[in-house]
Structure formats: C-alpha cells, structure tokens
C-alpha cells in the first residue's frame, strides 16, 4: 500500500511533460533577448537548467542520471567559456578593441548578443551540473530501489 502511495503520480508526470518544453523555450527566449530586455544569459541559463528539476519530479532521480551526462555538461561549460573569450577576441583581430561590436555596426544585433548566448550556455551547463550533483546525493525513493534491485536480480545470473 505504501509503495503504491509513493508511486509517481500520473498528474505530476503529465505536468512535467507539458512544462518541460515550455521551460526550455522560455529560457531560450530570455537568453536570446538578454541584451535588450530584463534578464539575460544568467537568468535564462538558470531557467533552462531548472528543467532538470521537472524531469526529476516527473520521473525520479534514476531517469535524471540516465538522461544527462555530467561529463558532457562539464565540457560544455568549458566550451562556452572559451566561446565567450573567442567572440570577444575577434574584436582585437579585426583591429579594434577587445569585446568591440564587430558585426552589424549600428544594428540591433550586436556582439553582446553572441556573448550573452555564450553566457547563457555556460550558466545552463554549470547549473545543470550542480543540480545533477545535488540530486545524486538524495536517497533513492521506493520505486527506484525496487527498480535497482530488479536490475540486480537480472544481472545476477550472469
């Protein structure tokens, strides 16, 4: 009885399915419009990364570990940092200053857009990494224990 009560509710799972794309899209919106509207790379990145929490609520910690690779996120973080610096450095190689607005001078679209996107990417990867680390310290709940023991039994005969 207790395990049935603990089972992931279908409503939670459906809501997670529904809001997952919304969270991602809204996060991307905030990142891409960062230089002209409230928010920016940092806030948008956090919004996207918080989608992991939706996965956790809907499907449990095991699914989170299965779906996201912490190592991959760690590398993405580094790549984003390098991207930011390289975009800023292009200014120098075009003969102007560091972080100068080199594309479309006079337009709405600026270097700061690209740098903002790099920041968003970086924050998304970083916060996601932190969240996964944090979730992995939690105790696995009943469902997952059953699942793990079932997997163990399957693996035993070998």
């Amino acid at each position, binding site marked *: 009885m207790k395990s049935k009560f603990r089972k992931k509710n279908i409503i939670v799972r459906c809501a997670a399915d529904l809001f997952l794309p919304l969270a991602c899209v809204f996060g991307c919106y905030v990142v891409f419009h960062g230089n002209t509207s409230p928010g920016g790379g940092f806030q948008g990145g956090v919004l996207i990364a918080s989608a992991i929490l939706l996965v956790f609520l809907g499907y449990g910690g095991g699914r989170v570990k299965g779906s996201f690779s912490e190592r991959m996120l*760690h590398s993405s973080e*580094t790549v984003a*940092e*390098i991207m930011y*610096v390289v975009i800023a450095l292009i200014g*120098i190689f075009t003969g102007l*200053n*560091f*972080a100068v607005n080199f594309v479309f001078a006079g337009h709405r679209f600026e270097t700061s857009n690209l740098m903002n996107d790099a920041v968003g990417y970086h924050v998304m990867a970083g916060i996601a990494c932190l969240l996964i680390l944090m979730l992995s310290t939690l105790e696995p709940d009943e469902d997952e224990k059953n699942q793990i023991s079932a997997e163990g039994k399957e693996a035993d005969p070998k």
Partner: protein
Amino acid sequence: MNSFLQNFPILAIMTLFVGAFVTSLVGRRNAVARNVVVAISVTGALAMMLALIKPVLLDGQIVAYWLGGWTPVEGWAIGISLEVDALSLFFGLIVTVAVFVSGIYSFTYMNHDDSLVNYYTLFLMLSGSVLGLVLSGDLFNIFVMIEIMTFTAVALTAFRTSYEGALEGALKYLVVGSLGSTSVLLGIAMIYSQLHTLNLAQIAALIPGQGGNLVTIAAFAFLFMGFGTKAFLFPFHPLAADAHAVAPASISLMISGVLTKCGVYGIIRLVYVLYQNINTPFVSYLVTGFGAVSMFVCVTMAFNQHNFKRLLAFHSISQVGYVITVVGLGSALGLSAGLYHAMNHTIFKGLLFLTAGAVQHQTGSLDLDSLGGLSKKMPKTTLLFLIGAASISGLPPFNGFASKWLIYQAAFLKGVYDGNFFYIMVAVVALITSVLTLASFVKVSQSVFFGQLPEQYREVREVPLAMRLPMWVLAVLCVVTGLFPNFVQTYLLTPAVSAVANLTAYIDSAMGAGYAAAHGIYVSGLTEVPITGVWNPVSWLLLLFCVTCGVAIVALLASPNDNSKLHISSKDETAEERDDKYESFFSGEEALYSQVGGSDLFWGFKHSWRKYFSFMHDWHSGIVNDYTLYGVVAIALVLLVCVIVL
C-alpha cells in the same frame, strides 16, 4: 605607441583565463597536453608583460584601454577600462614572474597528488585574476578580481583535503577574508553614491573636490581595511598563517608573493592616486602604524612556531609590514623603498617557500622538531635555502640588504626632517625586526638543515632538477637585484614612482587631455625621485644612539632581577630537570642524539619574554569567531578614527 601593443594587457589576462578553460577541457585524460597548455599560458603572459616594458617603463607611456571601445562620453567614463601605467606594470611583472616560477615548480612538486586538472584550472584562474586586478582601471573590476582571487586561493588551500588542517585553514581564510571583500564593496558603493563613477582616473580627479564629505572619508576607511585584509595586515595575519601552513608550497608562493602584493598595490593606489591624502599626517600615521605593528608582531610570532611553513608565513607578513610601513611615509624615497622591498619579498619568500616544499616533497614532514641534518642529503637545496635566508635577513650581498637599507633611510630621514620621533621609532622597530628575522632563520637552518640527521631520514635524496630549476631562477634574481640596485632603481623603481607622482598624466590618458586641469589636479606632492645612497653621518650617529637605547631597553626588560632566573650551568640542577638535549652545549657528548629542536635554540630569549609570548599564543586562539572579532574591531576603529580626524 604601436597600436597592437595596446592589446597586450587584456591578451595577457585572457591568456591565463583561456589557459584555465582549455586545461579543464583537454587535461582530464592527457597529462602531457595539460602541462603543455599550462606552460604556454604562463610563458605567454610573462612574454606579453615583458613586451610592455619598453613603452611603459622606459618611455613612460600609459596604456588606457577601453573594452568594447566605450570611450568616455562628455567627461564621464561609462565603459570598463584597463589602465596600465608603470606602477601597474611593475606589479604585473612581479605577478607574472611568480606565476611562471610557481607553474614550472608545480609540474614536479604536485606529482604525488591526483585530480591535478582541477589544481591547474584553479591555479591559472588565480593568476589571471591577480593580473587583472593590478592592470584594471575600474574600481568594481578590482572587487570582482579580488573575489575570484579569494575563491581560487581558498579552493587551492583546501586542495589537499586529507592534509591535517587544510579545510580548517581554508574556511578561516574564506570567512575572515569575506570581511575584507565586503569592506571593499561597501567602499565602492559609497564612492559611487557620491561621485557616480567607478573609473579610477575619474575618481582621482573628482575626489579632491569633495573636501570633507563624510561618505567619501568612510569609503576611504573601508577601502583601506579591505585592501589591508588582502595584504594580511596586523589583525588579519592569523588567517595567512593558517592558509600558508596547509597549502601546497607552490600555492604558498602565490599567496605570499602575489596575493599580498595585490593588497599592497591597492593601498598604494588608494592613498597616492585616488585620495592623494598621503601627505596628511593622520593617513601617514595610520598606514605606517599598521605596517610597523604587523612587522613586529608577526616576527615575534614566528619564534613560537614548530611548522616550517607556518613560520615562513609569519615572516612573510612581517616583510609585507615593512612594505606598508615605508609606503605610508609619503616620500618618494619611501615609496621606491617599498616597491623595491615588495619585489624582493616575492623573490626571496618564494625561494624559501619552494625550499620548504622541496623538504616536504622529499621527507613528507614540515615539523621543525623532527627534521634535522638535511644538508648532508640535500646540499643543493640547503645552499638555495641559505641564499633565501640571507636575503630575508638583510645580509649585504643579497637583495634584502639593498631594500632594507633604503627602508631604514626613508623612515629615519622622514623622522629627522620632520622632527618627528614616531618615524625614528619606526626605523628602530624595523631594525629590531630585521635582527629577529635573522635570529629566526638561524633557528630554522639549524633545526632543518644542520645538526644531526634523524634515523628515519637516512634515505632522503636530493630533489629533481625540475624542482631545483625554478629555485635557481629565484636565487639568481636574489643575487642580481642585490648586486645592482642602481640598475633596478633606474629601470624599475624610478618609472613606477614617477608614474605615481605624475597624477595628471594618469588622469588625462584615460579621460582625455585637460581633464585633470579642469578639476584642479596638477601634480601631487611627490615630485623628486632620489637616488640610492643618501648619506648623512649625523643622522646615522643618531640612529646608532637610538638602536643602543633600544637594545638597552630590551636588555633591561630581560634583566634577571627576579627569582625566575634560569640557571644555565648544569651543576645546581637536579637530575630530573636536566634535559639531554642541552648537554651538547655545556658538556661532553653524554647523549647520543643531540639535535636541538625548533623550540629550543632561543629558549633563553623566549623565557625572558614568556609573558608576551604566552599572551600572543592565547590571542591566536584558532577560533574563527575571535579572528572575525579582531577584524571587525579593527575596521570599526579605523572607520571611527577616520571620520573623526579627516
């Protein structure tokens, strides 16, 4: 100036930061690639700083670089800038040389540890942030760089988590260090509320017009104490000792040689450039007083230590105290002596920390009581240590002598010309501190490198060449800068001091020509840059008299008129009181093992000062609340006194 050279400051900072990121990307699997990236980054940053010597130090140009091309609009600096004058470049050179040496040393020194990719990432970020701090032209960026510097330094202090006390030292550093960061942040907020700008040059132009505005004065107190925390001045010195003792030796070099220099740089910028109030007697007393107290307290604290690196840490703060002392004098001679000693401190203290690291790497121990006689097994390291010890104690052929000589001169001349007894006392304290430093290093060399070799260190071998090479670089620098002080004076110190003196150029190069004159800034009080070797026999006679008085006072304090006198002769002691360790001094070789431990060499001195030492020992309780309390009290007192007096 060649326009591409203008990009070198930002490129040097970015080389270190990108190096950090690339290291964490490629270094996870491939150790060779990681080392290559680290070597390229540190060498690249050093090369770019060296390339700037010609235009900035020799030709006296100032690089004002606006990120993103956001130059000032209608006299308001809206962008973020890097402003490199000779003072910044001087500190930048110190930083990059120390980073280079520390990076090369780490390759061999850290080979017993794992997860080295994190170590190098943090190390390069620390280097980049420190370089960014000294080259920045923007007050808020200085705060951000201070924070990055504190984080990475804390993480690196705790890097060997299994080492006893590593986490504890790191936590104390973080908690008490956050007081300093918050203090800087409050100072910045107050300055911004009054002046609506964060650019250093514009602040320097606008502050004199503020007059007796209480908010900017409070901001001065906050900024001074914030930078003082980063230089580990007097009430904050325990956290430096804790952090140094447990950090890896290459990081100890960074903390002592580079991080404290950031505090020194901040204080110089603050009192000479931003507020230009160093000629106010009160500010001079404040800065000099803090420096003098920290140099004396820390050198006496070093007597009590049993850990090699903790002892070196206290000496490190003591030497920074010298620098701050003479910086506070407000004379050109004092400033050049301070800069000279700051440079020398990085060199010789780095050398000493690296030798301590070599001893730790080979023996696994830093305990002064258990080590001994290593000169038979590690003769080259011993030689390097002796060079470093002679330098820090101020023995003539080495660089410590040259800069300490300038320091005594500067303090004493200021006292004589102003007729002020305070500065003469400062000179005497500096001399006594130097004597105590020498005594302390006699103790270290006796208990680590000479004497009897303990049984368990029979198999110790010399460190590999890759570790000796960085030490040799520093040792050669010790000798070279000591032998040619005129060369150093001409090419490094004089440009830096004249850059500080020439405030108008600093403001105008950032804000556009004529900006300084429009705000009534012409030239600060520092106009004349003197040459080494000012000689006035009468002054030196007076100084000799003062030293004699000081020695007499010490002798009288230690005079054995109470019944607690120690009897040195062994015949009226009972057998239980006798300790075999002292027998080698007084009689034949009765005891087989006669090594004198770290605490025993100066036991007479320590016995006569036992009340002072036991007070200081209790005062450094190791409880983080107490250290925070000292810091808060110091900040509050300085704030109160500044607001009342200024």
